[in-house]
């Protein structure tokens, strides 16, 4: 078995805002009918959380569930257990049309933390990131510069962002540049 590493192996940038590549994170794409009772109980069994409403994320001690589209969830789980959890979901969803895939190694996760984190994201995303419009538990799929990404707020001034692993290095450079000392306007 090869030794798995994340795209930037936990690289950090300390600027006006701190950018961290989060290391190995377990992620499972689950597609299916989000109103289904079977899917709801499968999700609850593996992460102990309910199905989030539109553009929200539910988080708890066992992980998280993110609303990605009307028929798609992203489960945030323990990296080492991801394959076992996929197997558990597949068993729980037997007989119902669905798809569950371990995408942990196909994604990169970044943390954007500190006063000004909203401004850093707002430089690249056409999204209203003002304090009234974007709050803890909100999730948005959009773009950062030209890169597709999804991000959510875990607590005030703390964001998590997920993108394709193939553009992870560029995403880190982009976020680091946007977070340079003296470049954050403190607009929000």
């Amino acid at each position, binding site marked *: 078995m090869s030794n798995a590493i994340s795209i930037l192996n936990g690289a950090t940038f300390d600027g006006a805002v701190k950018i961290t590549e989060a290391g190995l994170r377990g992620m499972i794409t689950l597609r299916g009918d989000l109103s289904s009772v079977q899917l709801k109980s499968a999700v609850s069994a593996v992460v102990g959380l309910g199905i989030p409403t539109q553009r929200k994320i539910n988080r708890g001690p066992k992980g998280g569930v993110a609303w990605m*589209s009307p028929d798609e969830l992203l489960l945030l789980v323990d990296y080492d257990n991801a394959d076992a959890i996929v197997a558990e979901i597949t068993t729980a969803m037997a007989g119902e049309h669905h798809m569950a895939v371990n995408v942990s190694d196909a994604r990169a996760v970044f943390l954007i933390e500190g006063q000004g984190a909203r401004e850093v994201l707002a430089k690249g995303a056409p*999204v209203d990131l003002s304090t009234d419009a974007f709050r803890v538990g909100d999730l948005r*799929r959009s773009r950062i510069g030209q890169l597709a990404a999804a991000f959510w707020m875990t607590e005030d001034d703390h964001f998590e962002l997920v993108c394709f692993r193939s553009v992870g290095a560029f995403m880190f450079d982009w976020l680091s540049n946007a977070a340079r000392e003296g470049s954050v306007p403190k607009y929000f």
Partner: protein
Amino acid sequence: MLMLKCPNCGVTAEETEFAPGGEAHLTRFASGSEDQAFSDYLFARKNPRGVHFERWRHAFGCGKWFHAARCTATLEVFGTYTGQTSTPPDDITAAVKAKRPEWEGFK
């Protein structure tokens, strides 16, 4: 700046988050159909100056397709609606008619 509301995820976003999919509600003429009908399906578009029905995909968002009714001259958006329909719904045509009384209707 063109702003569209994606009916699939409820986001109102600017044009750069979407990918255009061309004229909506085309009838598909595939192999086996008359040459003229096939050719028109491939190449002939209304390309109007005014009310236009279009397909859009929320490419950087939820990834889903939907429809939009807008004015190609002013960029005014009359409404967006589900991708799972072959004609514009009544509330959309009513919204267009309210803004463009001279509009001759869909098709």
